[in-house]
């Protein structure tokens, strides 16, 4: 990673709508250099997409989330990758991580209702032949995600003018 690439990623992580010209000014690079660096990082799949961070709790969309600890039997030659792939292909699955510790995969699942989510675990996840056990925990409240605090008071306490 070059210094420019790191700076651009830090800027985009905060706000991916900053115009190219502004990013160029802020990093001290030329606009073409910034554009090329970003395109290059997209090609290398360092940047995968530009999406907003949404606080769904403030919308009227019904939504249940759970974190599921999954124990699996790794497959010969494929390790955990094959079963992870079987799991992440379900639309309900938002994230899958291979973990160290007492279970193997951590699966973040989202569904419309509690019942839908329970049905997903019972009929889709648990029935995979390599899955040997699951433990589901429902998300009750979201405090902070990707460095963004959802419910805190982050207001500016500074004096308006100070020497």
């Amino acid at each position, binding site marked *: 990673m070059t210094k420019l690439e790191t*700076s651009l990623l830090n800027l985009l992580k905060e706000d991916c709508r900053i115009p190219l010209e502004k990013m160029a000014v802020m990093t001290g690079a030329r606009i073409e250099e910034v554009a090329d660096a970003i395109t290059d990082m997209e090609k290398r799949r360092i940047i995968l997409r530009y999406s907003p961070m949404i606080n769904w709790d403030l919308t009227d969309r019904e939504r249940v989330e759970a974190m599921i600890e999954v124990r699996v039997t790794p497959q010969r030659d494929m390790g955990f990758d094959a079963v992870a792939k079987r799991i992440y292909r379900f639309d309900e699955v938002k994230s899958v991580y291979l973990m160290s510790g007492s279970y193997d995969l951590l699966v973040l699942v989202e569904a419309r209702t509690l019942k839908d989510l329970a049905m997903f675990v019972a009929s889709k996840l648990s029935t995979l032949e390599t899955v040997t056990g699951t433990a589901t925990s429902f998300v009750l409240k979201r405090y902070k995600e990707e460095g963004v605090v959802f419910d805190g008071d982050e207001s500016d306490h500074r*004096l*308006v003018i*100070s*020497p």
Partner: protein
Amino acid sequence: MNYDRYINPAIAAVPPSGIRRFFDMASTMKDAISLGVGEPDFKTPYHIRNAAINSIVDGETQYTANRGLPELRKEISIYLSGRFCTDYRPEDQILVTIGASEAIDIALRALLSPGDEVLVPEPSYVSYAPGVIFAGGTPVGVPTREEHSFRLQPEDLEACITPRTKLLILPYPNNPTGGIMEKQDLEAIAPVIRKHQLIVISDEIYAELVYDGHRHVSVAAVDDLYPYVVTINGFSKAFAMTGWRVGYICGAPELIAVMNKIHQYSIMCAPRQGQVAAYEALKTGRENGYEDVERMRESYDQRRRLMVSAFRGMGLSCFEPYGAFYVFPSIVSTGLSSEEFCGRLLKEKNVAAVPGNAFGACGEGFIRCCYATAIDKLNIALDRIAEFVRENT
């Protein structure tokens, strides 16, 4: 009851800070975007806050040594030597103070006798000249100019020296201009300092906030100037710790001992939890390559470039500031005085900036804009200033 005859006339004669009036005005404006702040927009990194929390929970509620916690002074010594090549012994050359402000105050009180003159480069931080007067001295402004990037010039310094001149305050990186003094600039004024045997009070509170490949150079590390210099620094700007009020002053043991006399009688010691937090800031910084400082500096630098480019885009002359977190554009082309400009900008566009003349007469024609504010707000403020400049040129 009329208290006039009780009040010290020397203090009564000092005018209130020119910033005060703008503060009062800006405080009444709803939703004004303020570029008038003088502190970081970051909160103190959480591991530093947490160290202070643990200290309170553990019942560390007592006085500390007058000069500050020994482990903190040791870290300060390592920090200054590693970052700025200045060597100060923790035992007798470092005194922990209530912010850099107390350090300035006790340095002036320890060194000045009535009538002594103190050279204060202008524009600069508003407290130096009043501090000199409170200590019985006479401040003498030394002008610095945009064409020299607001660096102190030896001939300007020389021109202000009289037989009563005793001290030079060296406020770099500079508030409000963002100007810095590089090694060759310090070497250029060194002969004047030696010739007139001046003691230099070097306020280096913004030392970590220097950009674009430049590095802060401590005047104490230049040539043979070390014995002439007392160095002041602190945690407010570099570690986003303004409210903690922890700074320090370093210099010859004989000088620090006199300052400590004032400090121990009037202050006793800097608050313990602030010192614990400061210790955590330096210790962790030393271990992780000053990660927090570097992160904040990069963010300031991005915003600094944005501001300079925007002001130049408006057709205003704006010298490139390599230090602190201020830009100091000239507003002369609008035909307005800096107070008119800021007053109307606040009323008409709801953006607060500080008129340059608040920092000394030669700040007239400039405004100080702090870029330690969220980028989206900076962008809105810059759009509004551009609109205001268009309407007034």
